[in-house]
């Protein structure tokens, strides 16, 4: 889609306007006018506004207008003698924010998760910011040195001189992020290998990859988690059992890798055969061909699918609650039963907070991928 070159000078201007591609975003006024252009449109607009009003008004009342903003226990969030209910109980969130973020991580040691999260944010920023220097190094550091540093910081193994904080004390946002970041970091490379394996000419590699992918895709994540936490202990001799959080991370990562492999295989199949043949004709070996010609194009094609897998992985971490791991949603759920805060609105307030948190994270991921696609599309059309 390109503009017609060299419009003849004698053509009427109206025609020139028509020849341009249709405007992508109509002006605000124009957009508003189309809402009431015909009686039917006007009716639909009114109807939609009414529905939005009925749905949004209670939410706004609950979250802001009727909400309680200060207090130090449940008494503040009770409606009192008059009956009825108050809105959201924000002091409950404020008081328990530390618990929601770190779980039972000892208060004196909370600088460690803070440092790990800051490092993580820096590293992600470096890897994702298009104009940053040495982005390849950033990606490498995110896959190898960063997880090791983060593990030493968070866990504090003997040689580090830090106080050991066993993983049963981790909780809240910390656990949600640890599980999803590990899942994301492991599932992408592993998914690439599995996808290549499934398309491999070698029968054993192909069969092994196919079986792994199909088995992992064929069972629900819940079943994988139960296997990791309830069946594994029965089969292993006592004393060699890995940490429960590690078991869950392995389960989640393998599950995500299987999904990722299928997404990437889609990208590999979408590439025209000519690309493979051209790379082979240039004398490139298998790995050179994959890493310099095929994968860069295939991965670009399936960015929406990859990000979609990340987003669903991030949200699926809430399932770890069934095996007794305290992720953000579990800490919120458990807190609503604390007699110090139990009121009719405590649980709803907690869930509203969780919804806001998950929405912000997932929306950020989705916006980044959209920006990435636009950039790559622009780069593609330039070449």
């Amino acid at each position, binding site marked *: 889609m390109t503009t017609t070159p060299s419009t003849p000078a004698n053509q009427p201007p109206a025609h020139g306007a028509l020849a341009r591609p249709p405007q992508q975003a109509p002006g605000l006024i124009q957009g508003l006018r189309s809402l009431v252009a015909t009686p039917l449109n006007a009716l639909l607009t009114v109807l939609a506004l009414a529905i939005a009003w009925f749905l949004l008004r209670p939410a706004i009342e609950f979250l802001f207008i009727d909400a309680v903003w200060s207090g130090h226990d449940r008494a503040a969030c009770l409606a009192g003698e008059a009956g009825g209910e108050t809105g959201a109980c924000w002091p409950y969130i404020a008081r328990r924010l530390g618990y929601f973020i770190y779980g039972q991580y000892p208060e004196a040691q909370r600088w460690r998760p803070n440092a790990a999260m800051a490092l993580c944010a820096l590293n992600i920023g470096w890897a994702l910011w298009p104009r940053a220097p040495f982005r390849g190094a950033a990606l490498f550091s995110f896959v190898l040195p960063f997880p090791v540093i983060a593990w030493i910081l968070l866990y504090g193994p003997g040689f580090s001189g830090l106080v050991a904080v066993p993983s049963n004390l981790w909780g809240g946002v910390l656990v949600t992020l640890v599980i999803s970041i590990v899942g994301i970091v492991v599932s992408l490379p592993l998914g690439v290998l599995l996808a290549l394996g499934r398309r491999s000419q070698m029968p054993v590699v192909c069969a092994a990859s196919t079986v792994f992918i199909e088995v992992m895709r064929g069972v629900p994540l819940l079943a994988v988690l139960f296997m990791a936490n309830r069946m594994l202990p029965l089969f292993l001799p006592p004393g060699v059992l890995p940490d429960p959080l590690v078991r869950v991370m392995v389960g989640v990562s393998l599950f995500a890798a299987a999904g990722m492999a299928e997404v990437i295989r889609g990208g590999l199949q979408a590439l025209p055969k000519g690309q493979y043949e051209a790379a082979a004709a240039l004398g490139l070996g298998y790995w050179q061909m994959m890493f310099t010609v095929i994968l860069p194009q295939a991965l670009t094609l399936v960015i929406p699918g990859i990000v979609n897998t990340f987003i669903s992985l991030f949200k699926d971490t809430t399932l770890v609650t069934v095996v*007794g791991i305290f992720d953000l949603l579990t800490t919120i759920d458990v807190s609503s039963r604390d007699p110090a805060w139990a009121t009719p609105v405590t649980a709803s307030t907690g869930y509203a907070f969780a919804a806001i948190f998950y929405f912000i994270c997932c929306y950020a991921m989705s916006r980044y991928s959209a920006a990435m696609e636009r950039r790559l599309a622009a780069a593609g059309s330039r070449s």
Partner: protein
Amino acid sequence: MKRAPVLMAMTCGVIAAAANGAPASAGVLDQVKQRGELICGSNPGLAGFGVPDDKGKWTGFDVDYCRAISAAIFGDPDKVKYVPLTAKDRFTALQTGEIDVLVRNTTWTMTGDTAVGASFTSINFYDQQAFMVRARLGVKSALELNGAEICVQRGTTNELNLADFFRAHKMDYKPVAFGSAAETVRAYDAHRCDVFTSDSSALYAERLRMTNPAENIVLPERISREPFAAAVRKGDGQWFDVVRWVGFGLVAAEEAGITKANVEEKRASDNPELRRMLGVDGKLGSGIGLPNEWLVNIVRAVGNYGEIYERNLGENSRLKIPRGQNNLWNKGGLMYAPPIR
């Protein structure tokens, strides 16, 4: 079907191996001492029994039991690692040795003792199914509930007990059943039924989540028995005794009037019974592998049974569950400890 026996055999083989292997040669008590930490299977969140406070520290009635065991062994109530378990996971965790003791509002039943490899030590709380109604209905007894609409959680023993109770008393009722506890409370609070039935500890806990807690009362009838007890893995007599006598010790301390405040004073007493209990005379503690001041350490750390009860469930808590059957035997309850001698 064909694979099931193989799987069973494998599973059982591993459990047998676990029982015959290292753990048998060193009893659980020795393992706990060596590890320097008690691993306690706990509830992930039940008001009054085990919930994390604002700082994330576990508090509650069952939690204090774990702390008491830790105090008896180490003289320090905080050497406990809590493993929150769902109802389904709890016995597996006990069997596989993931936890040393299960204190998780677990009802003592015959199958609990015979089929799941657990041994229940002593009852720490007598729960029973009861009814809650709005005070202004003026109902004073469950026998006046003929024809009532009753909110109950679907698929629970509560639903079955409810049916039995009404059939036994030849009364009619209309069940309004919901899938989750939260929905059931919500429905009762929204006046979709007149009565709400569940275990009494749950009724008092859920009452806090109602719009007007004070408006709702619990009727006196109790239609089932749910004795909660601490459980250990089968086959280790010494560890069983330790956990059981920590429970008895708490009750005995209350009966003897030993409290957190006066435990030092009672130690100096001339009363032979107190001197025996508090390890001044005799060597009762070392008989089960504990220090002789085991009971002093417990009471100093968490108080006696009554103090634990009042702090977490009773008048000093927000739940305000009357002692009832959980009172001492000589005060109209069922709590009774064999003599410490």
